[in-house]
Structures are given as structure tokens and as C-alpha cells.
């Protein structure tokens, strides 16, 4: 019962523990990568953040699907909040990925880095999602259009990924790959801790943001009742 009423608190504290642990392990415990040395340690934040962003977009699309199925209005806010979180984590992916490109190849941007390019496309796509919401009157029509657009997003992710792989065939050959030797067991463990940390962090932010948006909406109702 306590857990249900304080989901945000539980998520936030779990996220704090996991992330603190994961980051400490990533810095002080895990051995250096054979090829990339110390700089490989950025992997433990960049990749979990990217996967979390995908998870948020997927969660948003799932809520969108639920909205179209059930017509229950609350799914609109949930889908919107999930996409919102996805964009925050997407921006983080772009920034950390850019830093990684700087360490590895000395440039801030590399079109050869698939994940980075994909997140740029997704960033543009989901920015348009916000434009769509802002330029439409709130109501059932907007809820449904946003939901359809969010669903297009999860189809666009694999399609774009494929497109970016194919584009390497003619834009420029892949010189750098990060598919190095198999991850050592300890590396994989740290990666999992960090991934769990970012996922719960996203969950905590999502729960908070959703709560705030609901309070906002309820206040507006109250204002109308009192006016």
C-alpha cells in the first residue's frame, strides 16, 4: 500500500542507489577496455541512456495504442509524458555520444556513428510531435492525432536504423566500429546496474511529471468549479 502511494519516492530512491552504485563501479571497479582504455567507460552511461530513451518512446507508443483502443483520456497524458521523458534522454544520448565521438575520433560529430544519427532523426521527429500538440486545440482530436504520431515513432525507429545502416554503403564506409571483443562478465554486470539505474530514473521522472500534469489539470477543473 505504501509502495503504491509513494511510487515516485520508491522509484527515485532506487534510481539514486543504482546510479550511484553503477557509476562508482564504472569509474573505480571495472577494468579498462583492452582496445579503448579508460575512455570506454563512457559506454556505461551512453548506452543505458540511449536504451532508456527507446524504452520511453516505446512506453509512449504503448500508451498511445491504449488510448486508441479504450478512448480513455488519461492515456493521452501518459503517452505525452513518456515521449517527453524520451526526448530528455534522447538529448542526453546525443550529448554523451558526441563526447564519445570526441574522445575516440577527435570530432564532435560523426555521421558514421549509427546511434548518434538515429537519435538526431528521432529528435527531429519527436520535436515535430511537440509542435503538433502545441498547434492543435486540446480535445479528443488532438489526443488521437498525437497517439497516431507516437505510434509512427516506434515504427520509424527500426526503419530509420535500417536506413542509416544502408546509407553507410554510399555516404562513407564505416571505419570505426564499437563491436569489439565480447564484453567481459564484470563489464556486463556494471552495464546492467547502470541500465537498471537509468530506467528507474526515467520511471521516477515519469511518475513525477505525470503527477504534476495531473495536479495542473485538476487545478484547472477546480478553478472552473469555483469561478
Amino acid at each position: 500500500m505504501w509502495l503504491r502511494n509513494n511510487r515516485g519516492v520508491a522509484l527515485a530512491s532506487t534510481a539514486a542507489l543504482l546510479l550511484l552504485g553503477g557509476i562508482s563501479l564504472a569509474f573505480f571497479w571495472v577494468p579498462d577496455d583492452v582496445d579503448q582504455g579508460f575512455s570506454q567507460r563512457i559506454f556505461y552511461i551512453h548506452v543505458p541512456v540511449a536504451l532508456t530513451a527507446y524504452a520511453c518512446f516505446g512506453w509512449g507508443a504503448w500508451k498511445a495504442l491504449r488510448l486508441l483502443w479504450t478512448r480513455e483520456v488519461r492515456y493521452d497524458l501518459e503517452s505525452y509524458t513518456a515521449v517527453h521523458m524520451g526526448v530528455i534522454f534522447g538529448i542526453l544520448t546525443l550529448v554523451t555520444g558526441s563526447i564519445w565521438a570526441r574522445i575516440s575520433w577527435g570530432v564532435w560529430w560523426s555521421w558514421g556513428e549509427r546511434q548518434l544519427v538515429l537519435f538526431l532523426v528521432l529528435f527531429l521527429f519527436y520535436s515535430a510531435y511537440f509542435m503538433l500538440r502545441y498547434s492543435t486545440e486540446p480535445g479528443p482530436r488532438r489526443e488521437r492525432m498525437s497517439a497516431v504520431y507516437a505510434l509512427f515513432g516506434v515504427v520509424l525507429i527500426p526503419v530509420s536504423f535500417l536506413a542509416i545502416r544502408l546509407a553507410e554503403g554510399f555516404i562513407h564506409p564505416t571505419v570505426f566500429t564499437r563491436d569489439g571483443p565480447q564484453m567481459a562478465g564484470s563489464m556486463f554486470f556494471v552495464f546492467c546496474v547502470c541500465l537498471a539505474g537509468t530506467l528507474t530514473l526515467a520511471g521516477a521522472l515519469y511518475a513525477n511529471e505525470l503527477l504534476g500534469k495531473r495536479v495542473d489539470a485538476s487545478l484547472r477543473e477546480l478553478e472552473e468549479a469555483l469561478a
Partner: protein
Amino acid sequence: MTYFGDVAALARKDILLELRSRDTLPAMLLFVVSTLVVFHFALPSDSSDLAAGGLLWVAIVFTALLGLTRAFAAEREQRLLEGLVLAPCDRSAIWLAKGASVMAFLLLAEAVALPAFALFFAPVDATLVAAVLLADIGIAAVGTLLAAMAAASRARELLLPLLFLPLAIPVIVGGVGATVAEEPARYLGFLALYDLLFAILSWASFEYVVTE
């Protein structure tokens, strides 16, 4: 077969409207040729045919965008889409008919653009034509759905390119790949996959975009 009867009636209406008002197709034709001429001056003289092939795709996508912004112009002015939505026909028939007319205009524009491209820049082969046809399907399918969304928003013409271009990037990749790569088959396959996925998705979701 009433479904295709509905589609035919609706598409016929769109063609008829265009024949009467003549405001979309001439604009598209003029636009695509102008774009190619602009590209001639934008390309340094020693750049390869490959670069020109890439620009052809930019021209096609932006010409399609021009047509798409006009796609629901007649319906939008007097909320006529409501009239169509009220009719007992399947709502996806409205999408299919509109998509077909968008595609017809796009094909006509390309019937001018491809010979012009061959004349100005580089020869056009069967692969390129196939890629253009496949790309048109995807562009018309996704674009029609997004045009209906944009028509319901306040920003309208401004919103459509923002919604459409991120979704058009895979089309550009497939098209340019088929134009310049040594082995175009997999790019054509990719375009076909895109068409299939997004046509089904748009067909199934159009109803939700135009109803409440």
C-alpha cells in the same frame, strides 16, 4: 467492391477539382523544374553525377511536399472533411483516394522532372524509375495521413514539413542508394519494405485522425 467504388468516386472528385481549379499540378511542375535549375547553380562544376542524383531526390521530396500541403485544401476551407467522414463509407477509403490523387500528381510532376534531369545532369535508367515509383507510394501514403493531421491544426502549412521530413529520411536513403550504389537491389527492397509498413500503418490509423 463498394470499397473501391467509394475510392474511385472520391479520387475522381479530386482529379475533377484539380482540372477545374488547376492550382496544384502546374505549381508542382514549375517547382520541380525550377529546383533542378537551382541545383545546377548550386553544384560546383566538377562535382559528380552522383551528387546530382542525390539532389534529384531532394527535388522530388520537396515537390511532393508542395503537393501535399494542397492535398486537403478544398476540404479544409469549408470543413468538407466532416461531410466525407459522415458518409457511411470506410474512412480509410478517403485516405486511399486522396493518396491516389496525390500520387497521380506526383507521377505527372516526375514525368517532367526525370526527362529534365536526364537532359540537365545524368542519364536516367530503369532502376531510378523503379526507385521513384516505390518512393512515391511511401510518400503519398505517409504524406496524406500527415496532411490530414496538419489540416486539423492551427499551423497547417508550417506543420506539415516538420511532421513529414523526419519520416521522409528513410525514403531519401532508399532512393539515393538505388540511384548511386553499385547494387541497387537492396535499396529497392528497403523502399518496398517502407511502403508496406507505412502504408498499412497509415491505412489503419487514418480513421483515428479524422474522427473523434
